[in-house]
């Protein structure tokens, strides 16, 4: 946390992407979160992912609810569209925006309070409706803004900063997302950008609801011994099932792996996901298998990370509802409001 804005001074050889932008062009205002907050790392990962994918900032809409996590869209993509909605209501506002204009890339940023407590209903319906979006939950297991009470994702038996033991069962958003029909599901850790950045890139290029649960330690209230969402605990218990590499149609494929160790998934838009296997028996195309695997490993106290499930042929809400291709703001008045005669004809046809 700092009060000063980052100086704009740039070296002449700062890397630029295909659009000529530097990473700095994808940043937002200076963060006011606590120093060391995992959320800032996730913001940086989003900046990196958008830079790598050559995304034009004005093509992104970032939406959020309330909470530490939901403040973060102010700290990245300063030139993108944004909407800071009501607590837990990001999914419905985003769904409405997506219905009105399907040409934008939708990024929903939420937290464990915003999505697993007050907004769990909204979360569930966005997943099952198949809204084409990237849904990132910055999950730290506590209510940081109200001084560190357990949130709904806090593990049973974990300890608060003051030594209180959590007696409630946790909600596992990843299992819920799998169950509810998300077509791209991953889990990662804010302290591991090598894993997180490709996961976000894959999600941004995915057609359909993409959900990423990012464990993001709260340095102020949940980074102590006894916490299961501290930097140390997550590093010790992190079990990645695979490593993702996102390959765009324009890229040359240079990586080579021994046969059988690599799974290649071609997404709807032509981008390719290279999944390098880390867990021998893991199949990311098997939804039920994934749920079973997660439950089994979770019972052993492991935190399973990686791209857990992907269905590249999934359809999204627009194809379910057969909506019009063009954004509503480009259709024109005559098309949107064809007049009373057309209405009358329609009514007559239904009588």
């Amino acid at each position, binding site marked *: 946390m700092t009060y000063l804005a980052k100086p704009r*001074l740039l070296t002449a050889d700062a890397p630029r992407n295909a659009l000529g932008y530097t990473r700095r062009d994808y940043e937002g205002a200076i963060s006011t979160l606590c120093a*060391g907050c995992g959320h800032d*790392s996730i913001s*940086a990962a989003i900046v990196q992912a958008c830079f790598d994918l050559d995304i034009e900032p004005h093509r992104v809409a970032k939406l959020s609810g309330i909470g530490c996590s939901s403040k973060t869209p102010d700290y990245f993509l300063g030139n993108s569209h944004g909407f800071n909605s009501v607590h837990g209501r990001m999914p419905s506002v985003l769904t409405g925006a997506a219905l009105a204009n399907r040409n934008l890339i939708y990024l929903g940023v939420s937290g464990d309070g915003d999505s697993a407590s007050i907004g769990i209903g909204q979360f569930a319906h966005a997943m099952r409706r198949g809204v084409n979006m990237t849904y990132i939950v910055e999950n730290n297991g506590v209510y940081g803004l109200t001084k560190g009470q357990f949130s709904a994702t806090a593990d049973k038996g974990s300890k608060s900063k003051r030594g209180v033991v959590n007696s409630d069962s946790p909600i596992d958003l990843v299992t819920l997302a799998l169950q509810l029909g998300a077509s791209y599901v991953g889990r990662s850790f804010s*302290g591991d950008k090598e894993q997180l950045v490709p996961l976000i890139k894959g999600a941004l290029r995915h057609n359909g609801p993409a959900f990423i649960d990012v464990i993001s330690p709260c340095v102020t209230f949940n980074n102590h011994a006894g916490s299961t969402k501290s930097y140390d605990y997550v590093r010790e218990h992190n079990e990645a099932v695979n490593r993702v590499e996102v390959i765009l149609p324009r890229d040359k494929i240079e990586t080579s792996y021994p046969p059988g160790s690599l799974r290649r998934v071609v997404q709807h838009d032509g981008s390719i996901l290279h999944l390098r296997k880390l867990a021998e028996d893991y199949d990311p195309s098997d939804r039920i298998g994934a749920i079973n695997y997660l439950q089994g490993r979770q019972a052993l106290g492991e935190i399973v990370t990686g791209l857990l499930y992907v269905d590249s042929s999934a359809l999204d809400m627009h194809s379910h509802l057969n909506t019009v291709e063009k954004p509503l703001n480009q259709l024109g008045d005559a098309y949107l409001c064809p007049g009373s005669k057309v209405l009358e004809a329609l009514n007559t046809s239904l009588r």
Partner: protein
Amino acid sequence: MKPTDTNAPDYFHKVVDCQWACPAHTPVPEYIRQIAAGQFAEAYMINWRSNVFPGILGRVCDRPCEPACRRGRVDKEPVAICRLKRVAADYKEDIHERLPVAPKQKNGKRIACVGAGPASLTVARDLAVLGYEVTVFDDGKTAGGMMRSQIPKFRLPDSVIDEECGYIEGLDVAIFQNRWIASLRDLLAEDWDAVFVGTGAPRGRDADLAGRRESSAHIHVGIEWLANVAFGHVSEIGRRVIVLGGGNTAMDCCRSARRLGGEDVRVVVRSGFDEMKASPWEKEDAMHEGIPIHNFLMHKEFLHDNGRLTGVRFEKVRAEYDEKGRRNLVPTGEPDIVMECDDVLIAIGQENAFPWIERDIGLEFDKWGLPVLDPVTLQSTLPRVFFGGDAAFGPKNIITAVAQGHEAAISIDRFCRGRPLDKRPPATVNLVSQKMGIHEWSYDNQISEEARRKVPVKSLEEALSNIKAEFELGFDPRLACAETERCLNCDVQTVFTPKLCIECDGCVDICPTECITFTANGEEDDLRTRLKAPSRNPDQALYVADGLKTQRVMVKDENVCLHCGMCAERCPTGAWDMQKFYLNTALAGAEAPRT
């Protein structure tokens, strides 16, 4: 890579690029902060301790610090370090109370310094405060050496030289002017405990071409002519003047000629414009005064009409580089060029000359006519005799002469006390945290994004009408203050403590120049390819720290760090801290460590 040993005093010193580049290692960022705070006398004294002549150097220093300045790597131009030094000298209050006092009780050792230039005066200052009886001999009327005789008054007024030489005379240093030392043998016979030779490089190189002898009345050797101008023996020159040579002396010659009646003054150089030895700003100043610079022309003949100089004939050349990268100037074969002129000033180099040193007294000279010296102690083959400044290793600049004066003073002090000369007292280093509170540092860490300020100058008309009128007006305090803000405070070091780090990436994400990376260790060449921002300056160190929980290493590329302290502000555990590095270079009298 091996983890960086930040306890090695050179590591952090090298990060302070300006200070590292300064031969006298002046603590530049520290005095710039003092200027920013309006503490001009304080800033002056920091300079005075290191470089003895802040007012002089603030006007005419060769400023090796500025090309080295980090700001030049992240911005278009470096901080105007040199001219800020002048601000400290211009606006300070009386500093006499801050000056050291020579002890009343002398230590009985007598030191003779030959020549009253910057090297000798530095030796005199450093030794006088220790109780040595120092006597300086010079054949001129006043102290200052080449600073007074060769640098035009419109760049360096006499009053500045008088003031700063006066501070040294005030330390009970006897300066004998108008005394020419004709024999080192005789001087040594006077029983001095040590003799320091700081006689500079007093001979200007001549151009021995056809017509030189015949038209000698209007052909002048640059530094001699400058001295004659400085002392008022010459007050006019022909209307059309050609200056031969591309160094700073050539620039002083042409600008002086312009002020003494030269209307068509031109500089003609063998080399290309960029390869000229003159500092870029001196070339700019000359061109600003309407003096064209002609490149790739080799002087071949002085043309005359029965002894009256009429012009110079030049051959066109171009530069060719051999496989070793050495430059050869070869004729292009195009027809020669003749330029008409009334006077020629030859400024094609300077040479050392020691006509007063007998060659049979045990003092050896090398084949170039330079004394054989120990490069560190500056002791000659006659143990009692030391050299410094241009007299030691050939013509360089004032700040180098000062630095060598400090080293020679240390040697002379140790010599007189019977201590081994090769065991030198080390510089001492202080490293102090600047943290005052959560977002408070005891330095201004906000980075100015403003461009370099230009120094106000006199109007051309006014400047050219009076050769004694100082051309530059200097920064006023308001401009100076704005310029000080451009300093990046490179001496406030980023110090990393691995055992406190929780690897949250906060520093990596906030760093404005992306100079921090956490990654697996490797060899330096490999590591440089894996950093977050491209690392293309191998002259700048990588700061590597191990001992992290994930077994990775923290790698910081020092190249473009802005020292803004944002990494430390973002660090939740205080693993990063901003600590001010202050280097006290050793002066004579400091003790070498016992080993």
